[in-house]
Structure formats: structure tokens, C-alpha cells
């Protein structure tokens, strides 16, 4: 596990050709590790009939509304929490 709870992280902004579980609205965005879940088989290879090994660490990453959506939307503050695999996380920018 490369990251610890409370650490700021940035989600890699790279494109990915094929199945992956990192939604585009968090790519390039900076958030904070909220939970370190466990390791799980990698859906990016599992989706194509492989075993998904090695297992990858999975984190719950929390983002402020203002980080995700530049234009001020109505409806006040909130946070969005997304499960992100470690190979999609980078040191916070």
C-alpha cells in the first residue's frame, strides 16, 4: 500500500484504451485518501478473461465539489468519494 489515510493524491489524467474503472470526471483531479480498502484483482485485465493478478491496492479517495466541477453549480458543498486502484494514483499535484 503506497498511500496512507489523509494523504493527498492526484488521479492520473491518462486515457485508457479498454475496460477500466476510473471514471473520467476524476481524472487529473486531486483528492485525499479516505480509506485503504484492500487489494483486489485488476478489472482491466480480468475484463478480458485473464486472472487479474497481481491484485492491486484499492483506495477510497474523497474529492471536494469545487475540485471536480469548475463552474459553480447550485446546491452547496458536498464531497464525492470514489474507489480508485493504486496504479491510477500519483503524488498530489
Amino acid at each position: 500500500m503506497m498511500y496512507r489515510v489523509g494523504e493527498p493524491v492526484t488521479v492520473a489524467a491518462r486515457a485508457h484504451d479498454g475496460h477500466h474503472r476510473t471514471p473520467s470526471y476524476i481524472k487529473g483531479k486531486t483528492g485525499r485518501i479516505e480509506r485503504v480498502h484492500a487489494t483486489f484483482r485488476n478489472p482491466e485485465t480480468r475484463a478480458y478473461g485473464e486472472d487479474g493478478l497481481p491484485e492491486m491496492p484499492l483506495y477510497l479517495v474523497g474529492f471536494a465539489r469545487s475540485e471536480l466541477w469548475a463552474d459553480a453549480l447550485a446546491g452547496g458543498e458536498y464531497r464525492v468519494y470514489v474507489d480508485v486502484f493504486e496504479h491510477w494514483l500519483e503524488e498530489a499535484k
Partner: protein
Amino acid sequence: MSDHDHAPINNGDEPAAVRVRALEELLVEKGVLRADEIRAGIDWLVSRTPADGARLVARSWVDPEFKGRLLADARSAALELGLDPGPSPVVVALENTGSVHHMIVCTLCSCYPRALLGPPPAWYKSLPYRSRAVSDPRGVLAEFGLEIRDDVQLRVLDSTADIRYLVIPRRPPGTDELSEEELAALVTRDSMIGVAEPAAGAASLLTNDD
């Protein structure tokens, strides 16, 4: 079935259903799955109901130590009550309080704690819910009839991977006299997704004083 002489495949069904049936036929034909395995899987899925999740919530309302165990490891807590937490995905329970409100979405598809809540409602799988839950959650909740005060921290959980989230809603006021079973009857599916409060209206039907 054996010699592949199926009727015109599109008999007025929606395209997704036609595609699923074609996939199913292929998987069976190629020996990846047997038809009875598919049926058993579907039977299991449709046999699940939100009543199981409701039992977890009701127990957590009457037993703080159980709530602690539910928050720490929902899978073990479900097993403790004799409930089937389902295959691999890990379930994480999140508690709504007077200062924090959680709601659940899967923006990428329809990830949902099916083992404990049954099949997800159609709106949960709809594009408008999936996109607006993360971009205008208060607006979405208002459409469900739920106003979240500005001083309440709103947390939207996007279930993108192996974890399935279950909300423990707040116990409605005026339910002190209710039994655990009566409490469970108040815990609606939507309250465990975090888009509604438990059926407080139903509570007054169960109590005699008002």
C-alpha cells in the same frame, strides 16, 4: 434449443434484452456456462430483497455494539444475523447522522449491494441519476423529497470497484417503543441507498399515541 432453429430473435424486445439473450446463447453454446447455471444465478439475484438490509439496519438501531461491528465489517455482521452477504464484493456500511448524510451511486454502471438489497431500482441504473448524483446531489435528493440542510456534510459514494456500499439511515424520532421487527419494516430500500429517510410516516401508524 439444440439445432439452433430459433425464431426471429427480435420479437419486440428492447435491444439490450436481445443482446443479452444472444450472449447467453453463445456462452452456453461455447460451454462457458450451462443454462442451469445461468438460471440459478438469476434465481439467486431475484430472491434477494431489501428486507435483509433492513434487518441489519434495525439491529444496528437497537444494538450499538452490533452497529460497531456492522460499520467495521458488514459482511461478518450479515453472517452474524444469518444473512447471505453474497459472493466476493466487500460491503461497507456508512452511517447517516444529524451532521453527515451519505448517498450511493455507481456512475460507471449499476454496482449495488444486491445480496443485501436485491436488484437495484431502474432509476439507479439510469443515466440521469448516475450523472447528476455526483454533479448536483442536493438537486437529485430534493427530487426524491429529501432536503439536506447546508450544515449537513453531504457525501456521495461512487461505487466504481469491488466495494458495495450500504447506508445506515437515521432512526426516525418517536420509534423508541417499536420492536426490532417493527423497526425493520420502516427501513426502505431507498433509505439504504441514501436518497430517502426511513418511512417515518409508517412509524406513526405503528404507534398508538398519535
